[in-house]
């Protein structure tokens, strides 16, 4: 399958669809995070430089500990936060969740971020890149071991409005799949050019037995059927 979507089943028996994020989106997120870490490091070097001149060795010690914590626990701290994502991931609309769609646990977050070292091998995150490209769910090694998934955050589809179209009852009963196809076309109509909309609507002409009518007429009638199927009545 070309579609990369993972279904997580809940105890209530419904399937939640997770959309794993691929290499490019995650690389961008990673890059943003690295920039932020550099910025923090430079800012902190400034502060700790002043601190070291006052406190001496203690300031340097805090600096070392700070660098340690920043390097190893920057992602852990953010992933366990409410957003479930580092600033870079949030900027790219990504989020880290468990395989079953639940929020990430501290153990899993720690696992996936400590195993980053293995993902880095042999150089520049080559293992991570290969693993992400080979797997449909785009997991890096750390994700595999921690049973976590980096997913795109949900974006809701626009509601079909088109209130100006007059609802029109279909001349014959339509199968559920056909119904949803017609409604989906109506939902997309505002984003399409007139020509493309006419082309697509022509494919649906048989539902009204309209093959012989002019293009614009067919489109208006198909959208009318969509309105009727949604539940609007004249």
């Amino acid at each position, binding site marked *: 399958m070309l579609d990369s979507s993972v279904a997580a089943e809940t105890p209530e028996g419904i399937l939640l669809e997770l959309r794993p994020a691929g290499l490019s989106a995650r690389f961008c997120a990673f890059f943003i995070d690295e920039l932020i870490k550099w910025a923090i490091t430079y800012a902190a070097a400034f502060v700790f430089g002043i601190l070291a001149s006052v406190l001496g060795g203690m300031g340097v010690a805090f600096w070392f500990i700070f660098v340690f914590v920043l390097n190893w626990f920057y992602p852990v701290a953010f992933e366990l936060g409410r957003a479930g994502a580092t600033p870079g991931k949030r900027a790219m609309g990504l989020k880290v969740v468990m395989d079953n769609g639940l929020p990430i646990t501290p153990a899993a977050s720690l696992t996936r971020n*400590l195993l980053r070292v293995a993902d880095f091998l042999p150089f520049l995150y080559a293992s991570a890149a290969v693993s992400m490209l080979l797997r449909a769910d785009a997991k890096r090694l750390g994700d595999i071991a921690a049973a976590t998934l980096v997913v795109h955050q949900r974006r809701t589809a626009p509601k079909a409005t088109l209130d100006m179209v007059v609802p029109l009852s279909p001349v014959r009963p339509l199968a*559920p799949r056909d119904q949803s196809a017609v409604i989906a076309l109506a939902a997309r109509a505002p984003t399409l050019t007139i020509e493309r909309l006419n082309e697509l609507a022509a494919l649906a002409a048989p539902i009204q037995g309209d093959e012989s009518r002019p293009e614009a007429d067919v489109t208006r009638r198909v959208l009318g059927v969509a309105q009727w199927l949604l539940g609007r009545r004249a």
Partner: protein
Amino acid sequence: MTPLHFEELYQAEWQELDAQVKLILAGRNDSHDRVPIQGERVAALYRRACEHFALARARSYPRYLLDRLEKLTSDAHQVIYQRREFGIHRIRQAVLYDFPRAVRAHAAYVWLSAALFFVPAVLVGWLVYKNPDLVLSVVDANTAAEFEEMYSDAADSIGSRRDVNSDWVMFGYYILNNVGVAFQCFAGGLVFGIGSIVFIVLNGVLGGAVAGYLTERGLGETFWSFVVTHAAFELTAIILAGAAGLRLGHALVAPGRNTRLQSLVNAARESIVIVYGLTVMLFIAAAIEGFWSSARWMPLTMKYTVAALCWIGVLAYLSLQGRRAR
């Protein structure tokens, strides 16, 4: 039933659930002027929403409706099934039971890891002791000289480089360095265990070479009195990190009846507990190494007594703590 009718009919319930979920997510901090959250109501609404979602999907309702219900149910799902793993109670539980038990559950890996460290260490140490020139095949001449200088009688604080002779600096440096080494030993396990083996053996060889070389040079007393106390925590922690890494590697190489993937996930979940513990051990080691081990004014008998107590304490903790039912 048309989609619009469906939406109109159940809209109120969805909105109520959405509001409650938002409350639960947001209202954890401010306790005053908050509408009380009714758990039973949320659960009931959630189950209703799940039914609606399944129905809507089976009836091929329009995308926007499915998206809305999916977002609603998945948000509620996250709130209802989330696990809390924080808190004093959890930490106490981990210190008193989980960590030492996890170590004992991995006893075979711990022994193997210890052997991987000590066999090369003793072997190389003995060779270097017999023939000090061999140290140059492990470290370069500058490093050897640096080590010699660090433990020489002239240094006013043992074990630190000349230019950074503050206990605090070394404390910070040890944390940065040693915890990093330990994490690498663990993560190396993902390369079928090879990474862990390489890291542990390398550390063993390096430690053995330095120890043999310095002992041969007549700096043995300074060196051993320096390392022996914090080694109780540091060496043990590195060996435990190697053991956790070996567990990962073993899970990949010999998954048994599980799939390789499931085997790895199980291994990671069980061995990460060891990594929690050893991180804390390395912080303790860094504190001892920075402030206690380097103190030159301390009488040697005192140092060795404390060292013995540390070793006994660590080994007893790992082998005995939490054996009884909680």
